[in-house]
């Protein structure tokens, strides 16, 4: 997930992202990126995450993203 964020979302190899680094509140990722990340999270966790349940603050760090997937995600059929 961190690799995806660094290369596909931020697009700068000089940026280091840790699991607890704020991404949304720091302005590093924007609303469109958030949508792509949510979809990537579904692929990585093999879960369906209802977007209506997710807030940007739930996706602020990589740790929070996985916690959100655990909380709201349902196994894909």
């Amino acid at each position, binding site marked *: 997930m961190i690799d995806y964020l660094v290369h596909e979302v931020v*697009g700068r190899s000089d940026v280091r992202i840790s699991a607890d680094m704020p991404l949304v509140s720091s*302005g590093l990722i*924007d*609303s*469109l990126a*958030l*949508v792509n990340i*949510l*979809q990537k999270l579904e692929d990585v966790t093999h879960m369906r995450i209802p*977007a*209506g*349940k*997710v*807030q*940007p603050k739930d996706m602020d760090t990589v740790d929070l993203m996985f916690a959100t997937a655990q909380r709201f995600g349902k196994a894909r059929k």
Partner: protein
Amino acid sequence: MIQTLIWVLVATLLWLLAWTRRSSNTRYALLLLGSYVFYASWGIGFLAVLVASSLLNYACGLALRRKPTLGRLWVGVGLNVLLLGVFKYLPPAIASSSGFLGHIIMPVGMSFWTFQGLSYLFDLYREEELDPALLEFCLYMAFWPTVLAGPVCRLPNLLPQFRRTPVWDRDDISIGFSRIVQGVFMKMVLAQLLGAGLTRGAGVTAGFDQTRGGWGPLDVSLLAVGFGFQLFFDFAGYSHMVTGVARVFGIRLEENFDRPYFSPTPSVFWTRWHMSLSFWIRDYVFLPLAAMRRDVWWPYAVFVMSMTLFGLWHAAKLTFILWGVYHGLLLVAHRAGQKLKRRISNPWPAPVGGLLSWCATFFLVSLGWIFFRANDAGQAAAMLRAVVTPSGYWHSVLPWESYVVVCFVVIVYFAYHGLLAGLDAARARYSETMAREAGVFGTASATTTFGAATIVTVRVVDFFGERLWWWAAPTIAVLIVSVGAAIVRHNTAISVTPFMYTVF
């Protein structure tokens, strides 16, 4: 005006009384009474709609707290949309009707507090742990500083602050008053100056409302920039005032503006302009909708839909819808440009690219204000046609005073922020120097004359900043006396335009 000031005074007194109560229920009751007294001064019927909306949303919230299902959420959303439809969108459509429906007037600030109610329902559906009592929720909806024109607050931010034992904090009071002074200056001086001009007929308002048309390209550009700044000073000034009032009572509201005209891209602009509504649209409309489908084009379509809703939020008027669509398309164009930029090598050095990007954003955002302000779509089209007619560049219908005022205010605004940025940089240098020289004032100045000037400037600014109380209080007193004197003279000395966003 005098009536409004009296109600503000009554509400303030009730709030001051509330702040002395230890019992939270008595405190909430007094705070709510103060808020309702203030709001009822605009019309007792308006208050009835606000109370009905509060009770309705609270009841929907109870249902969602028991079981957060999509069906229950949609019922709540539908009821809110129905209320908005009846009181906000229906009256302009049936203005000529002579029956009961023809007498419906939109309660002031309805779009703001309805969206607050909706955000509560969305948050409950998202299983946020929110358990407001009825009094707390009614206070959230009617909160005196924000009930007229926002910021659009969220319960998770306000509820813990309502529940805290009230204390008078010197810093909060100082910051609150300085923001009120800043807001009064932005609204009463800058927005007023741009709107009304220095002489009759030379303001932005007269420029847009003149009926003979015939604007030249420079006229339109000036009016667009002038109106953009007038709206900014008016609404940001208002936001400063209400945030300041709440802060005096120790309550921190959501920020609404963050130097929007310094935005390097349209996307950044929407994280700095009317932030409380912009983030509302992002969180409750854009994200859930955009994540529904995986087609590449879908999020871009949702950008346009979300921004159209943004425009429609202001009023069901074609010009606002066009303004929303225009900004939606700007956001799409920006994302497409970003993708393209990743594929091709950038020929510009970073500072030049940044400057070009800022110029383009400023120009495009300013151009968008024509849709927002034009009296109808025909006028907007005529003005935009004028901008793209190079042959008319030497043609102008605006008086030269208009150019002087708008250019002066805009230049002073950017110069002021440039100065602040310079001061921040100087402060950073000052800290470094002082740390290096072991904090002995005077030793560092031996380095250079520039270093000495930096230290003196920072010391002077900090001296006045730390003693804000000394100059803020007299400034407020002078302003109040001036406004009061003007009112007593039957508004002949000043004629203050109402806040622009109270009509939404």
